[in-house]
């Protein structure tokens, strides 16, 4: 079953397209890694999927719904963790959680059970009345994670999650992703931490200059770029070579 289908998307911030005809998909219960150099179009792709940008051409479907058909039903299925944490400066941690519950129309009692568990995992349970200004960058990122995983979304979109988190939190996040995958949720994750990606992702989408350079499992990639090498890192670096030449 396809959860997310991106087909022939052309788009960008202005009239000049950054993404040139991008197509890939994410299936149910699958973790897909979005890999590419700085400026390859990873964030632009994500911004199109979460609905911040509208594609010039092409279509993005999430379980049969596009954002144009029913934006509420579409957005209801997505939880997003941005690369740089953004929080409402005037809301405490408790209120952020409450607001997420309200926005996604979650059952309060049930959601708080999940929330308490997540807060405990990420060691935030005693900081419920703190303002974002008092959080360190890593803590803010954890708040983002807790809010996102509170939602029971069908698709999690995680932009570069590993930078800024302590090793314990990285491990906890990976466990969390694993758990949600088993429940049938899909995850699209962009990252530069390639050895972690290689170990955990089911498939990869390699972006380069706004185009999908290669797509598939690690084995597929090895076959597609036979001279590149064994590891994801080698394959990634061979893409850089193309750029330098």
């Amino acid at each position, binding site marked *: 079953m396809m959860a997310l289908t991106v087909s022939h998307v052309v788009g960008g911030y202005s009239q000049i397209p950054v993404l040139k005809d991008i197509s890939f998909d994410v299936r149910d219960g699958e973790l897909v890694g979005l890999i590419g150099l700085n400026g390859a179009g990873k964030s632009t792709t994500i911004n199109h999927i979460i609905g911040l940008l509208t594609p010039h051409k092409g279509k993005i479907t999430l379980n049969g719904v596009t954002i144009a058909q029913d934006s509420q039903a579409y957005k209801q299925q997505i939880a997003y963790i941005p690369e740089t944490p953004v929080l409402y400066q005037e809301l405490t941690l408790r209120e952020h959680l409450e607001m997420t519950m*309200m926005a996604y129309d979650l059952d309060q009692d049930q959601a708080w059970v999940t929330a308490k568990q997540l807060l405990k995992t990420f060691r935030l349970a005693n900081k419920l009345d703190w303002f974002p200004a008092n959080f360190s960058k890593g803590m803010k990122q954890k708040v983002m994670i807790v809010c996102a995983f509170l939602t029971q979304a069908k698709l999690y979109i995680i932009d570069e999650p590993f930078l800024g988190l302590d090793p314990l939190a990285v491990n906890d996040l990976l466990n969390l992703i694993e758990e949600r995958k088993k429940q049938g949720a899909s995850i699209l994750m962009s990252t530069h931490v390639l050895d972690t990606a290689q170990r955990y992702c089911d498939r990869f989408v390699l972006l380069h200059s706004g185009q999908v350079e290669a797509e598939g499992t690690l084995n597929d990639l090895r076959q597609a770029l036979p001279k590149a090498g064994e590891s994801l890192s080698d394959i990634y670096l061979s893409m850089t070579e193309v750029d330098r030449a």
Partner: protein
Amino acid sequence: MKVLFKTRKQRHLREMAKYLRLVFNDFFVFALLFFLGGLGLGYSNVLKQLRPGFWWAPLVALVVLAITAQVGRFATLIEDADRVFLLPKERAMHDYLVAARRYSQGLAQATQLIILFILTPFLRVTLNWSLLQVLILVVAQVLLKDALLRLDLASAYQVTGQRRMNHWLIKWGVSLIVLACGLWLTPWLAVVLSLVVDVLVADWLRRHWASQQIRWRQQIASEDNRMLGIYRFFNLFTDVPMVQGTIHRRRYLDGLLRRIPVRHDKTYLYLYSRGMLRGTEFSGLVVRLTVIGMLLLAFIQGRWLPVILTALFIYLIGFQLLPFFQQYDDVVFTHVYPLSWDQRLHSFVTLITIILSTTALLLWLVVVAVNRDWTTIGVTLLVAIVEVAYLARGYTPQRLKRAAENKG
């Protein structure tokens, strides 16, 4: 170094001019004229009742003049980076600081002259002074301010840890002694005393500046403080990027906030109401304008003027609140959360209605307290209700919809 100060001064003045244009907008000038007119009228009435020989008259003059002497700070325009980049030029900084003191004199001495000008009739009537005596006091006051500014300059060179020469106790002590001598004994004495202080400080500075270090950190801190004060003032009237609204927990408002049900359709109301009450930017604006409006209404009578003023203030507040709608546009979740634009607009309209109704009620209560004319009271209420309803439910959604459409 003098050139450096000159370029900085020009940049500073350009910036101030930019803000002053915004401060003295039509509405503010209108309110200011009202205020000054009323004040002038009151003062002239008081003057008519004064006679020579009131024991408290010199005391009042002393307090006013001593406060005035503290107005006008040493504006160095020093920046944080200077302690790194200008450190090798420390000796040359003397020229810079002297130029800065000269620049600071302008506004400071102008203030002294204006206050003394206003005080002249008061002094002449109550102390039975001749114009010459007043003029001598003016000279004393100007010399005093000169001495105080020289204290600021000298203390830039003091050894760290030493009690600062421009400590407020010293400044106030000198001002009070000099002015008391001038008011109770003879203004001539005040001139002599302030001249002595000025010369003594100048002499200390001449002997010490070349051998001592500039207290960079204190100078930077006090200049930052001075600029922050200016920006805060401008921020009363317009947005100053240097002053960001701060956030206060305001736990005592939690009871009020908790009355918003935790429900899907109230999500934005939940956010907006907390943002409004805990942030200082918009809530400060509402409170300031409401208080100013209430004060104005407390002093104004007449059949139609209160009606017009109430309407004006409600409009001003309602109009200035519109940008709050976009307050959270840069938080990505505002766009990602499964919430519709209509829900957001609906919550915003609710919030505006509550705020404007509260303001209107407060303004109306002042009108009720001050006026005896039932027509005025009734018409004010009617106008306020119609205006709040139109602004919140008609104008606001219409404007925001159009703005959203233009954005595409």
